[in-house]
């Protein structure tokens, strides 16, 4: 058994590459990448984000959650000898030899103004706020650009015919990085269309369970006031007793 203080040191040492940066002494395999045209040799296997940091870039834009949820680190790249322009989230994609990279920290985008409480739940609402969706030529570029692998073109098509549920399902995992909108030849801001459609579906297309409404009424009527009075007055021993006496509902 290790001493508890030593355990902490072992853990800290093992995590160094993600807490203090990569140490070149630990690296055996290397690749060349090009950041906005400049070539850098970086450790193989790192994410694009880690590799750029290793190369000396400190992110002030193009980095957010660093875990694939926020869409801040949208990146475009080509690989040497390939015509395909590819997209990725820098925090979730490994560097490959010969990548030519650029970050897209911001996507200029139309956003409609609306009051969700007043919009009609009708097929025409999406078209009214984003008439440009009618310009979709089904070229599918948006789908190819999506780092979440969503069927973006299909949800724009769903939006055209006012199918809120389908838009919501197909666009649900959208992290709003904007790469679809940057690439779209019809200049559609897909991710904003999806946003409005999901909100409409969440508000109007889904119901609120009766039991949840009943609880709100109970709270309004002060049903729990007495119990809370007791709980707030209880000392730790009493609270411990109540905690121990809890019965866990069946799985």
């Amino acid at each position, binding site marked *: 058994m290790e001493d508890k203080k030593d355990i902490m040191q072992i853990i800290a040492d093992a995590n160094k590459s993600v807490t203090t940066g990569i140490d070149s002494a630990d690296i055996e395999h290397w690749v060349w990448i090009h950041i906005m045209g400049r070539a850098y040799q970086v450790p193989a296997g790192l994410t694009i984000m880690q590799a750029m940091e290793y190369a000396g870039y400190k992110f002030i834009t193009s980095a957010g959650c660093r875990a694939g949820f926020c869409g801040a680190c949208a990146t475009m790249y080509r690989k040497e000898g390939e015509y395909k322009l590819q997209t990725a989230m820098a925090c979730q994609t490994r560097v490959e030899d010969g990548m030519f990279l650029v970050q897209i920290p911001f996507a200029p985008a139309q956003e409609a103004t609306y009051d969700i409480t007043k919009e009609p739940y009708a097929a025409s609402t999406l078209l009214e706020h984003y008439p440009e969706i009618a310009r*979709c030529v*089904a070229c599918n570029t948006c789908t190819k650009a999506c780092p979440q692998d969503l069927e973006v*073109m299909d949800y724009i*098509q769903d939006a055209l015919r006012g*199918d809120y549920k389908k838009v919501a399902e197909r666009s649900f995992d959208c992290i709003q990085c904007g790469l679809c909108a940057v690439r779209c030849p019809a200049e559609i801001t897909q991710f904003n269309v999806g946003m409005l459609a999901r909100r409409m579906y969440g508000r109007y297309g889904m119901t609120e369970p009766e039991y949840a409404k009943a609880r709100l009424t109970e709270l309004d009527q002060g049903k729990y006031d007495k119990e809370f009075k007791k709980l707030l007055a209880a000392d730790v021993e009493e609270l411990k007793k109540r905690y121990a006496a809890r019965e866990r509902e069946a799985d």
Partner: protein
Amino acid sequence: MKIPYYPGCSLKTSAKNLEVSALAAAEKLGIEMVEMPRWNCCGTVFSLTSDDLMHHVASVRNLVRVQEMSENGSVDTTNKMVTLCSMCFNTMKSAAKRVRENAEDLVKINSFMDTEPDYNGNVQVLHLLEIIRDMGFDKVSAKVTRPLEGLKIAPYYGCMLIRPKEIGIDDPEDPTIGAQLFKALGAEIVDNPFKKVCCGAYHTVHNKDTVIELAHDILTHAQEEGGEAISTSCPLCAFNLDNRQKEIKEKYLKFKEMPVFYFSQLMTLAFGLGEDACMFEANYVDPRPLLKSKNLL
């Protein structure tokens, strides 16, 4: 027959009555229309008014879907598809023709859509009306349980179903396909000299007056010939002829409202498939009083 069916956007929104009635009527005739699992807008006017190849990608992508369905056995037809909306029909048939006849265009589109299977150029775009005609109108008569006796219908064709000649499903100068169908349903046919005059199409958005004039002409001429109702196969024509009657009445005080049917609504009615399958409530001018007066409801 089990055939890939392309609905188009209008049929999912403003023209649900066309879709619901057509699917029911077709089923009665043994035509199973299987909605394509993924489909996109055909491209409508953009592809018709521009020779820009990009605007045909949308249609061709749908044709690829049809090809897939033929290959994976979800239908029993080969490289055939059916549409209901005249506009979608015309757009997609035009695109199919263009890439069939221009090998270079086909190669270019295929190489642009490099994540899709190559389109083979062979899909035949059909309108439900021509499938029915090719089956024989006697098959239609055989299914009629409630002949539309005494109902005077003026068939209207508009543009997209019959023009240009190499796309249309009937004689562009003197189309008869509607007349033959409704005759088979037991209705009386009134010939409207304005049956192939344009309804004004998309002028309805920015140039409403033009549409009001055209629609007024089409409707009043049908009435002068004794027509009690008019028929169409196009959601856009339906909108201009049916919904615009509100504005026509405001402009022409003597104008009398007149029901506008989708051809398929008359079929479901004559086949006795029930009012749910007719969806008359979705028509702007309610046809039910007329039908009741003829004892058809």
